[in-house]
Structure formats: structure tokens, C-alpha cells
């Protein structure tokens, strides 16, 4: 049963005439006989990922249910904009909001401000200038399952990323309205999610005051022109274009201004990377100097063909995918069909802004039959290039040159 989609698992109970309970479990899904590895089982065979359909979402790759972690299938990366229902989902603690009354909801702006605010979604829509940005939201641990040696954590493939048009208000406008006091150094963000056990650190993030006043940072109440799905942070979430999704606090409830360092596990202990340009370290020599993860490095991913696909020899195949970086935009994408010996420029799609996915396509007509390693690499407008190898203990910030294996037949 391993690997079949599990969209309709059900358990049916009934009582037979003799009064015994019969429990029939119609189980589709992960086999109980092999350890579930997202990409291969214990015997090394490729296992098709399990999928699930959660509220307001389409079929997504299932990692976990409580709290939910759902991954976007790569086929969606043939388009610039990731549909709301296909956008990946990741929560840290299992007490996630499932019901929000917007008549009662208030976003608080408190702390070191002259005038604390309590704002409804209507207040945000009517009393502040609306702004929109197309921006990539990528989990810090996207592609973690490709780390070698493997690391524990959310075992994402490449689909913990999406691109959407976010509409909302500038964070700096909210802070200005509240009036930030002299001496403020940080701003913290807390959502509605809570851990089952209160001793677990409640999820919270912070930005330095300078970053909080970056005009690109917004509090978004719309995603692709619609309300946010609950699982993506309804009613509002923070959007920090160019930075990893860990800062994009969902179901945002409280913004607090601090004149001292805001202490939280989620900045001080978690989501940290080695303090060097690529965030890399060796399993044998773990870095002692670490910093909070922040901006996204340049990377590129294949959307099609799928890894392991069979390609017709002598026919044109469209190799497609996405590229993005931390906010300079994409200058060039190159594809190699010979394992990295030679590289060919891919055609870039429309430019939707420096924080957006940039589609790329490469028309490939393989002449010879056999196994081929297709590789892709991107260069940003800032001149940043992808790297060949990266490892760190938490499986963060992967931006190595990716490849897929296809068979030409």
C-alpha cells in the first residue's frame, strides 16, 4: 500500500447481529511495514509521496497533520503565481486557529509606542494606504530532505515555497500611526497559534527596528486578490519580501515594539545558521558562531520534467522551472544536459518584480538515448550564484545547484 494517495481514508464501524463491534478500516496510504521515508523506503525504492486535502487547499504532499505541514507539488511551479489552494502550509505548534471572527479580531500594536493600536481588518483596509507586492514565501527548511548527511526536521522536498501577490499595509505605516518611541530597537510578532503545553515556547519572531521600517515589509490581508486561507494565516500575516517564511508570522495578532532585545526561543535558539555567507558548516565541526536566518539566497528549481521521467529522443522537450533570490531579481538561468560540463542559457519569463518567481524554459532536444543528469543554476542581478554543496545541522537555506535524472528513450 505504500505510496498511494490517501485522500479518502476512512474507518467504518458497525454492529453485527451478534452484537460484536466490527471495525473495518479502509486504509489507503503509508505502509505499516517499511519505515516511511519521503523519497525512498528502506529498500531504496522510490515511494510516491502521500497526499492529503485540507480545508481550503487542494491535494498537497502530506508531511504531517498535527500541526499541519503540506507541500506544494512541483507541477505548480510552471506558473509564476502559486494558487492559494496549492500554497504550502507549515505551522510550528498544534494549537492553530481554525475559527476567526473578524468582527472581534483586532491586531494590536503595543509596547514602546506613544499610542497603542487595536485594528480590525476593516481598519487596515480603510485607514491605511494599500500596497501590493509579488513575493516568494519560502520555508527556511525547504528541500531539507535532500541534505546529505540527512538531518532531522520537517522532511520537505522542494515544495515548501510559493509565490503570491500580497496586498496589505506597510508595517512602517502601522508603526508610524502608533508612534514608535525613542530608543526602540526591535519589533516582535506573535500569531494566534499556541502550543498544547504552555511550557512550550509560543511561536514569535522579531525584526530589528530598521528592518521593520523597510517599506517592502507589509501586513497582508489579501493573497492573490482573495482573503488568505486559514492555513496560510487568515486574517492577516506578516510579509517580509526576500526573507525566509519564518518571519512571515501567520494569523498575526500582536506587534510589540521593544527598547531592549526581545527574548524568544524562536530567534535566540531556533532558526539560526552558521555565521558565514552560505550558512554552512561540517557535521564534524559544528559552527559555534550562529546568527538568525534572514534573506534567501539565489536558487532555481525544476518544475518539469519530473525527476525520473522518460523523454523521447529526437523530440523537443520543454524543461521548465522557477528561479528567485532575496530581492535583486534573476539575471540568468542556465541548464546543463551533460552533468555540468556545458551550460546553456534558459529563456526567462515575465518579470513580476524583484521578489517574485521568475519562470524559465529551456527547449531541449536530446539526440542520444540513455540516462541524463539535467542541472539548473541561476545568477541574480546582484551577481550571486548557486553553490555546489551545502550542509548545516538544521537543514536550512539550501541553494545548491539542483539536478534531476531523466531517461532518454
Amino acid at each position, binding site marked *: 500500500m505504500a505510496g498511494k494517495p490517501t485522500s479518502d481514508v476512512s474507518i467504518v464501524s458497525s454492529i453485527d447481529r451478534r452484537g460484536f463491534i466490527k471495525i473495518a478500516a479502509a486504509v489507503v496510504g503509508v505502509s505499516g511495514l517499511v*519505515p*516511511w521515508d519521503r523519497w525512498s523506503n528502506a529498500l531504496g525504492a522510490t515511494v510516491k509521496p502521500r497526499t492529503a486535502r485540507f480545508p481550503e487547499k487542494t491535494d498537497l504532499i*502530506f508531511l504531517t497533520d498535527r500541526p499541519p505541514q503540506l507541500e506544494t507539488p512541483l507541477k505548480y511551479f510552471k506558473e509564476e503565481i502559486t494558487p492559494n489552494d496549492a500554497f504550502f502550509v507549515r505551522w510550528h*505548534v498544534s494549537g492553530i486557529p481554525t475559527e476567526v471572527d473578524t468582527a472581534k479580531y483586532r491586531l494590536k500594536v503595543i509596547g514602546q509606542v506613544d499610542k497603542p493600536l487595536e485594528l480590525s481588518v476593516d481598519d487596515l483596509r480603510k485607514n491605511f494606504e494599500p500596497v501590493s507586492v509579488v513575493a516568494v514565501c519560502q520555508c527556511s527548511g525547504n528541500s531539507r*530532505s535532500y541534505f546529505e548527511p540527512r538531518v532531522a526536521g520537517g522532511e520537505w522536498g522542494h515544495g515548501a515555497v510559493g509565490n503570491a501577490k500580497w496586498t496589505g499595509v506597510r508595517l512602517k505605516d502601522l508603526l508610524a500611526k502608533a508612534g514608535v518611541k525613542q530608543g526602540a530597537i526591535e519589533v516582535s510578532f506573535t500569531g494566534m497559534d499556541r*502550543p498544547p503545553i504552555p511550557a512550550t515556547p509560543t511561536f514569535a519572531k522579531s525584526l530589528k527596528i530598521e528592518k521593520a521600517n523597510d517599506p517592502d515589509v507589509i501586513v497582508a490581508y489579501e493573497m492573490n486578490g482573495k482573503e488568505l486561507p*486559514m492555513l496560510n494565516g487568515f486574517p492577516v500575516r506578516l510579509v517580509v519580501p526576500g526573507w525566509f517564511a519564518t518571519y512571515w508570522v501567520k494569523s498575526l495578532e500582536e506587534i510589540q515594539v521593544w527598547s531592549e532585545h526581545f527574548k524568544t526561543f524562536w530567534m535566540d535558539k531556533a532558526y539560526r545558521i552558521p555565521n558565514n555567507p552560505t550558512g554552512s558548516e561540517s557535521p564534524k565541526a559544528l559552527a559555534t558562531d550562529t546568527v538568525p536566518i534572514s534573506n534567501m539566497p539565489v536558487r532555481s528549481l525544476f518544475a518539469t520534467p519530473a525527476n525520473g521521467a522518460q523523454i523521447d529522443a529526437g523530440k523537443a522537450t520543454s524543461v521548465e522551472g522557477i528561479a528567485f533570490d532575496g530581492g535583486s531579481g534573476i539575471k540568468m538561468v542556465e541548464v546543463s544536459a551533460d552533468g555540468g560540463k556545458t551550460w546553456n542559457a534558459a529563456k526567462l519569463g515575465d518579470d513580476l518584480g524583484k521578489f517574485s518567481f521568475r519562470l524559465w524554459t529551456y527547449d531541449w532536444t536530446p539526440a542520444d538515448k540513455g540516462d541524463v543528469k539535467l542541472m539548473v543554476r541561476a545568477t541574480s542581478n546582484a551577481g550571486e550564484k548557486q553553490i555546489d554543496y551545502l550542509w548545516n545541522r538544521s537543514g536550512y537555506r539550501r541553494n545548491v545547484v539542483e539536478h534531476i535524472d531523466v531517461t532518454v528513450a
Partner: protein
Amino acid sequence: MKKHLLITAVATLGIAAFTSCNREKTASAPTAPAASVSSEDSAASIHQIVLPKYSSDLPDAAGREEFATSCIACHSTAYINMQPIMTAEKWEAEVRKMQATYGCPIAEEQIKPVVSYIMTVKEGTGPHIRENMVAAAQHNPVIKMARDPGDRVEDAKHGEVVFGQYCASCHGVDARGGGLAGLILLPHPADLTAGHLSDDAVMNIVANGIPGTGMASFGKLAEKDLRSVESYVITLCPDDPPAGPPSDEGKQIYMQNCINCHGADGRGDGVASAPLPRPAADFHARRPNLDYAKQVIANGIPGTAMPAWHAKLDEKQRTQVADYVRSFFDSQ
């Protein structure tokens, strides 16, 4: 193999009865894995989703009870299944991180058994933990129980017969949860002598079952049988109100440790309760007796999200919080 298809659980005291509201939500899409609700009777300003629920089939192996009262309070077993293959040392480090960093109340002596269990059921070659989606709750109407006391006595007599026919196989003839058919179930079948339930709570459970557990829906039974078995179950544990008001300490411990699942008012409606296969206990619908409440707080309820607290709360504190949760019940 059949053993591993039986997930299940039975109404253990201390586990929530479903509020009618919850049943309506989960019943809204019995076949669909998940539903987004645009309920006609809810205000237009309310945005609500109903998460799909999953429960885990935990193969029998050493450390199962420790695992079942330590890990699944906070996260589902999918978290464990998706990890790469790891050594016992690495798993122990993970468990200790849960204890030290994430506040898991796991006791020192539970750590090795938990690691041993994971090594057996995840990294071993035998049966593995499997997660299954829980079917939506049944939605049989609940029979209102307002009846004359004399009728109830008569009903209870017939109810004992019905109980023997349908319930005793799991709950045991003495209703203490030790029936042969229930031995492999996790959570274990409820000890029905360990706490008092409201009429509606019993009727909800009997008529609609408890999704994700071995407690099936008996809603198709004749109304007389349903009424009778309800009357009988109520007699198994008469209400046992606390002698006096609970201590402030009990309330404080509750607020510090319990509210995110059981809710500030003990209704089982804390923010972390909604995603559970079964919501946390609603103490307005049930009053566990003192010994049982203390036992559950100390040891958890294996196979549910109720963890063991004996490493975090000493016996005095456990008694105080037991007194407190016993103070919520709405006496009839």
C-alpha cells in the same frame, strides 16, 4: 495484520464528550477528508475550517505506553515517521530536546522506553506506526433523557441486559474497561465506574460513537435500548461532588498547564483541542472521581493527547488540579 488495522480507542473518562457543535462540524462531510465550513447559522464575520483528524495505530512493543503518554500530546506520529533513519543516541537527543526545550512533561524514566519504542516501530523491521484518517462523527440525534426517576430505574434494569449484549465485550461485565475484545485497543476501553457523566454526554457517545476510537456508534439500536443503556451507565458511577471549593493553587496549576487544550473554563475548547482526533475533556459534561482524576493526571491516557504529568507535578499538586477539574461539572 488485523491487529494493526484496529486503531481505536474507547471512551475513557477524562476524554471529551463531543459538544453538539463539534459533532455538527465534523459531520458536515462524512466522506470528504476535510471541509471548509460556511455554516448558514454562523455569522458572516466568522471564518472557520474543520481540520481532518488522524489517529495512530501504535504496534504493541516495549515502551508503547510511555510513548503514548509522552509524544502525541503535542504532535502526531507523522512527525516521527517522516524522519530519516536515526540511531538510538540521536533519538534520545531528540526526546531530550522535547523535554528541555519544548517543555514536554516526560519523566526521566520514560525516556529510554520511548527511544526503545521508536527504535522498534520506526527503525526496526517489524510493524510500524501508521496514521489513519479518522472518519467524521456520526450524527444521530440524541434522545433527550428527561424522564421520571421510576422509569429510569426500570430502564436501568433493561439497560444492564443491553450493556451485556453490546458493551461488555470491550468494557467488561463489571464495566471497568477490561473486556477481552478491548484488550488490544488504545486508548483502552473506558472504566465506566471512574467518573460521572451527564445524560447528554453518555447519550452522545452511545448514539454517535467516538471517532478515531474503538467506540462505535450504536445509534441504530432501538430507542428503548439506547435509553436503557444510558440509564444503566449513569448508575455505574453516581455523581460524587467535591466536598468544598477547589484551592487557588489548583486553579493556578490548571491555568499554567492545562488550558491550551481543556480551555480556560474546562470545556475542552482550548486552541490546541480542535485539531485532536477527539477534543480534550469537557469537564462540564463529566466529573471523574478523585482517584481516577489523580491517576490520569499522573499517568496520562495512553493513545490520547493527555500526557503523564507526574514528572512535572507532585502528588499534592496533582490532587489540587484534580480537585479543580472536578469543580466544573454542571450538576443536574
